[in-house]
């Protein structure tokens, strides 16, 4: 029998359940003993004993039940989460994570971890997603190493206070902007690049000098377990924690007060994260996705464009990437050529039977598999498949699939695809694409293939997206001088390079003044002369100031 008791009691009970057990046992004995002599005492007394007995019994049972639960696995609930944040806050208060040396040592260890466990990481990713080893090494491990290396190289410069100009208004003074860590931060990551998307934000949080909790995605369990094992081996356990788990663990974490929450995932959970953050006025970075379009103009080097599209779509985790092309827009007369070229190159890359190819990832879970097949089985797209469509449910594989001329009200055009399906929309002239794109929510990325300079300009000006790449796919992500992040439905905040450091820093404004030049006009009693002089000062116009001082204006 499960005895319902409140959270606090549970926490209390677990904290000292051994001690409690003993106490309860003696209480039970006491009650039992009294029961045996019940005939000697009067009725009300007896009732109170009965009550105490049943209370004690239920408490005893609940403790018993909890301890068996605990023997199976440690429960991570609100109480545990609150202990965890308290611990992190204490470490942060000690100032340990603020030092340059601490930050560098953590970043160096992270590189060491990548080097010493390359195989383990690639294996875990293969287990979770059948990710080809090259993809794992290139897009996850090497990207992370580069990110660490850059931070190590630049950290001193990033940490340096930035001098700020001061005006006549505050003369004499000096000003600077100091980057300071925010405190304890929470990073919730995604399953599609479970290694990179967990640790790249961590690089930012470490560089900025925070303490942190990482919650890897439960949908990539092998990587999650590996991270939980490796991080404590390489990084400072007192300030960098990993909490594994699903909804209940995440909710427990979200109930705590954090100084920043960095979430990578989908818009639905993004909303939950932001609403939870609102309770504590915690700023958030939301790295979400969206339907990232690819506009293909005619008159381009079609083979190169096609290969870049394929590598950006199927070559990045089989379309399960936030920046992967979601759909293509092209003109009617060019569509067939494009499809032919896609087919040809797909075959060179993945062979005649892509379901067998080792160079392509699988679908992450059966939920996602059925979501994707539902998109394919939608009546509105029946007969639109011009390539692929094969699936292997047992191995969670879906072949690269191209759909031509899909209607815009079909399911596949309503939600982010996040898989190996690529619909092609047809417009009568390429400039119509801007309206198609802008009629939907703002995507994380937008791509255009063209040689036409004017089109490029139009595209950049009229399409709003997190990032834009022209004549390639996803490459903007690899450039650390560009901020990476969404806009509108595709998220808020950005990271990579110095932007990662900034995402986890507070920019403190510091103004130094001396006691000279204290103007009486700042203080009451106020007079009209003071207004005049103040006006002049605020325009910082020396001539007007002079005139005001001389009483001429």
């Amino acid at each position, binding site marked *: 029998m499960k005895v319902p008791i409140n959270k606090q009691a549970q926490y209390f009970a677990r904290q000292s359940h051994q001690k409690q057990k003993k106490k309860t046992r003696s209480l039970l004995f006491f009650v039992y003993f009294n029961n045996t002599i019940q005939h000697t005492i009067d009725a009300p007394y007896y009732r109170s004993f009965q009550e105490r007995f049943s209370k004690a019994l239920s408490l005893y049972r609940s403790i018993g039940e909890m301890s068996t639960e605990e023997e199976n696995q440690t429960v991570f609930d609100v109480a545990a989460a609150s202990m965890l944040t308290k611990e992190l806050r204490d470490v942060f208060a000690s100032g340990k994570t603020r030092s340059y040396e601490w930050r560098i040592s953590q970043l160096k260890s992270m590189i060491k971890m990548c080097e010493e466990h390359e195989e383990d990481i690639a294996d875990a990713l293969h287990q979770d997603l059948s990710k080809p080893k090259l993809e794992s090494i*290139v897009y996850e491990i090497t990207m992370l190493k580069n990110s660490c290396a850059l931070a190590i190289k630049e950290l001193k410069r990033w940490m340096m206070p930035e001098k700020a100009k001061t*005006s006549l208004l505050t003369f004499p003074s000096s000003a600077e902007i100091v980057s300071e860590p925010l405190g304890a931060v929470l990073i919730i990551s995604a399953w599609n690049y479970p290694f990179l998307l967990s640790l790249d934000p961590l690089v930012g949080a470490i560089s900025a000098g925070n303490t942190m909790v990482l919650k890897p995605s439960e949908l990539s369990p092998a990587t999650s377990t590996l991270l939980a094992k490796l991080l404590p081996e390489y990084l400072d356990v007192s300030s960098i924690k990993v909490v594994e788990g699903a909804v209940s663990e995440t909710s427990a974490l979200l109930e705590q007060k954090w100084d920043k929450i960095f979430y990578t995932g989908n818009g639905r959970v993004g909303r939950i994260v932001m609403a939870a953050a609102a309770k504590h*006025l915690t700023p958030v970075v939301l790295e979400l996705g969206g339907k990232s379009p690819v506009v293909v103009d005619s008159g381009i080097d079609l083979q*190169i464009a096609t290969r870049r599209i394929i590598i950006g779509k199927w070559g990045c985790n089989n379309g399960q990437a936030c920046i992967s092309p979601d759909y293509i827009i092209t003109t009617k007369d060019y569509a067939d050529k494009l499809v032919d070229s896609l087919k040809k190159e797909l075959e060179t890359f993945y062979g005649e039977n892509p379901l067998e190819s080792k160079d392509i990832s699988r679908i992450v879970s059966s939920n996602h598999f059925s979501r994707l097949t539902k998109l394919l089985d939608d009546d509105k797209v029946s007969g639109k498949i011009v390539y692929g469509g094969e699936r292997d449910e047992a191995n969670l594989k879906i072949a690269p699939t191209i759909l031509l001329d899909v209607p815009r009200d079909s399911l596949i055009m309503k939600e982010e695809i996040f898989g190996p399906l690529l619909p092609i929309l047809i417009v009568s002239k390429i400039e119509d694409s801007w309206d198609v794109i802008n009629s939907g929510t703002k995507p994380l990325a937008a791509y255009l293939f063209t040689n036409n300079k004017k089109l*490029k300009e139009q595209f950049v000006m009229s399409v709003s997206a997190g990032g834009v790449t022209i004549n390639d796919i996803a490459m903007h992500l690899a450039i650390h001088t560009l901020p990476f992040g969404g806009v509108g439905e595709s998220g808020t905040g950005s990271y990579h390079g110095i932007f990662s450091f900034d995402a986890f820093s507070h920019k403190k*404004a510091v*103004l130094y003044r001396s006691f000279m030049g204290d103007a009486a006009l700042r203080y009451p009693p106020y007079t009209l002369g003071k207004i005049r002089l103040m006006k002049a000062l605020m325009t910082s116009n020396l001539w007007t100031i002079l005139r005001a001082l001389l009483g001429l204006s």
Partner: protein
Amino acid sequence: MEGLEGTLAELRDTFQSGRTRSVAWRKSQLRGMIEFVQDNEERIFQALDQDVGKHPVEAYRDEVGVVAKSAKLSLSCVEKWMAPRKGDLPLVFFPASAQVMPEPFGVVLIMGSWNFPISLTLDPLIAAISAGNAVVLKPSELSPTCSSFLAENIPKYLDPKSIKVIEGGIDVCEQLLQQKWDKIFFTGSQRVGRIVMTAAAQHLTPVTLELGGKSPAIMDSSSNPTNMKVIAKRIVGAKWGSCSGQACIAIDYLLVEERFASDLIDLLAKTIKQFYGENPRESKSYCKIVNKNNFKRLLDLLTDPLVEASVAYGGSVDEEKMYIEPTILLNPPLDSQIMTEEIFGPLLPIITLDDIYESINFISSRPKPLAIYAFTRDEKFKKQILSRTSSGSVTFNDTLLQFLCDSLPFGGVGQSGFGRYHGKYSFDTFSHEKAILQRGFFPELEPRYPPWNSFKLHFIKLAYAFNYIGLILLLLGLKK
């Protein structure tokens, strides 16, 4: 509320048309703003006098002047701010170019506050205009004269198709918050800040929250024996001189060493008299409390028996005039409301410490304030304050001036809010930084594509490490 949805649809259409994006539009609006404050200076002074009893000098210094200055700065810089920034590129990407291009968010909501009903409403508006957004402005209903003044006059000076002023109370706010915005900029209290952010979460709308907090001033008397008079002026100016303490960056409480406390109180009292005369109630230079609710709230803070016993100066009130005398309290209990809540009014608790260095722990064990003021000449102490406390800003040896420094970001951290504005930061707050990468079609690197093999892996690894010599060796077959 159909009217509201219609208004929003109109704004969306305007924004889609691209009208607000042009430099010409932005500049004409900024010019309109400058004209607006120039033409209406007297009327703004009157409105402010009516709502909070602000003297024209204070009104100019904290409101009209701030808006004019900010509009002028934006006008002269907006083109520079709008220009895309180049991003450096590693050679592997050759030929390519990378840029960061600021683009407007779209339709944004600005919610102003009542304590500086002109500047805290129009300064964010200037920011939103500079960045090229369409805007709904919601002035605070607690400063009704200013609110209706803005609603009536802004449309005369600024493009009514792209900038709307919507007046109203809580119900209107609620309706506004249910809409989808591309950005919400809120100035006000933490309680409402939470509501705003929760509502924004439904549409994944980014928010800037400009809140308050208990901003302390640290008085290190021992390192400053000669400048006491100037310091006292600056403290009094920052407590009572700016809307009678009803300012987010006003000094909330003062930390001082025990042995200097009584001298400091005498000096502050003297300065108060010098500023506001023997009877501040009659002074034109002193603001009233904004409304009955706040008056009562402040009175409750003050009439807590233990707090009342700690009054060292002032303490008189006049409910009819909504007046509370500049009041100094010495060591009120730390667990009393006056020391746990933001005061936002003319009461100044002084907390004494044995050693001024204890102030660091005192501050860092409490929620992060919007501002910290420290009067000290001790460089070691300055460094410690900077590195061991956290706040929106730190100002040494002065007060409030950080607000006027355009090159410094203004905004809170932790409980005092997030996001920042002023100067270029204002423009950034209302812009999305779009990353743009342009590539050519040649040369094409074959190893980018499957089927994968160990050569390709090697190649990509070297490319990622920007090891160009290694790459050449590999291509020549000299490296395995």
